């Protein structure tokens, strides 16, 4: 499979994407996040109307590549330099007062997806980074000196800088 073809496919996905609550009728809907559902408002083939449910597609969630661009930026931004030391022990999330309130904010996980460069995951979770309250408990708890608080600062800057690519599909 050539990269160009893939690109074409991706572009298509974007074009057909529509807003609003999608795929209500999918039984196990809660396991499928919006960005994966393509539900065309207007789709017709040979005079047959295939809009809405009849034309719905669900994109696969397979992680297809590592894209370390954001990771490199985070490393260069103030206080982001130690992200590379993280070994995913989860101490930060364990002590994080925000994570206890908001499951979508998980410092350990954010660091992982940025480190590995799972763009699709970053797309889904990057907004959560701004929930960090900067209390610094994580940096105190981290056994490897990652300084997650600082990394969150660097990340929120990096995510803003890459806003364009990170927009929902």
């Amino acid at each position, binding site marked *: 499979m050539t990269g160009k073809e893939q690109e074409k496919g991706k572009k298509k996905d974007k074009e057909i994407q529509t807003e609003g609550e999608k795929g209500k009728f999918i039984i196990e809907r809660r396991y499928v996040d919006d960005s994966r559902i393509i539900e065309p408002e207007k789709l017709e083939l040979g005079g047959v109307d295939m809009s809405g449910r009849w034309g719905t597609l669900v994109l696969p969630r397979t*992680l297809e590549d590592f894209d370390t661009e954001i990771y490199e930026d985070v490393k260069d931004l103030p206080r982001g330099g130690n992200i590379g030391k993280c070994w995913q022990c989860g101490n930060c999330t364990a002590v994080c007062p925000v994570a206890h309130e908001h499951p979508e904010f998980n410092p350990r996980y954010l660091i992982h997806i940025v480190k590995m460069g799972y763009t699709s995951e970053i797309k889904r979770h990057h907004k959560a980074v701004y929930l960090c309250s900067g209390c610094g408990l994580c940096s105190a708890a981290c056994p490897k000196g990652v300084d997650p608080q600082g990394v969150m600062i660097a990340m929120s800057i990096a995510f803003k800088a890459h806003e364009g690519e990170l927009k929902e599909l």
Partner: protein
Amino acid sequence: MKEQGRPVLVIGGGPAGLQAAKDIAEFGEQVVLVERRKELGGAPIRWSYHTLAPDFRPTEEVMGPLVEFCEKNDNVTVMKGCVVEECNGRPGEFRVRIKDESAKEFTEMVVSSIIVATGFEHFDARVDPRYGYGRLPNVIGINELEVMLKQRRVVGHDGRPPKRVAFIFCVGSRDRSTNPWCCTVCCGVSIKQGIEIKQLLPDTQVYMIYMDIRTMGLWEKMYWDSMEKYGINFIRGRVGEVYFTGERLLVKGEDTLVRGPFEVLFDMVVLAVGIEPGPGTKQAANVLKLSLNEYGFLAPRLPNVHFDSGKEGIFLAGACVAPMSVEEALSEGSAAAMQAVKFRRNIVKKVPV
């Protein structure tokens, strides 16, 4: 033959065996060192390991002196390409029959005690077909990568250096369908090799796909350095299938931290193949009537006292007892040597001449 003249028989010319022979010889005792293969040095030399974890010391630097000593020293009789075929008699005077496999000659001798150090074999990754080892190009074992690193030339089958390398841990280890035990060293060795690849090809991305990282004791430093100094990435999960697309290797697995499947292209896949008991161990066990444990390693009388075979006058050392690193094997050799010498001296006291 007088008691004093009776040598100690060491089976196996690997790290443990050589160390044992050296120590006994330095006690001024006679040693007979029997090695099945044509050269001394055991696994590190046979598979031509480039360096040894954790301190990246060249293998020759560790094994060279030992081999040289045993070759030169008068107290040590080295018998290469030989196997012990028969053993009877009682502790203190075992009558052994040693067969030279090439020349088909037999040597008979009486030995006071025996040290078994028959070592291990690398797991044959073809037995676990999901990684396509032996079928797909650029799927290699850590032992083959050592050879490449020694030649300072890490390349794929097309002769080009890989841009992205994946190490798959626990191949033929911790798996009911192959070997259920942990080989204890492959995490460390893989990480060591990852670092060496980074030193050799700084632009190559290295990914470690692991279940657990078991870099015991001070080996942990390698693990930390690999991450912090060399930027090696670690993916927690397992690989289900490796598929060759015609150009690159498509590795299908799961990143358990993301709870999601990944299908990523790599240029080279290195399998951290496990350690399993070799034919030499089995043969020695038959000849000396030693008991094997459920996994086929030699079973010591007490699990925490490796050198004690449970049979008077026979001592165990090295990876024939359990998977272990070279550093452990060396000290086990030493320990067994001490036991053998102690045993001999006691006999001399008991039997006045």
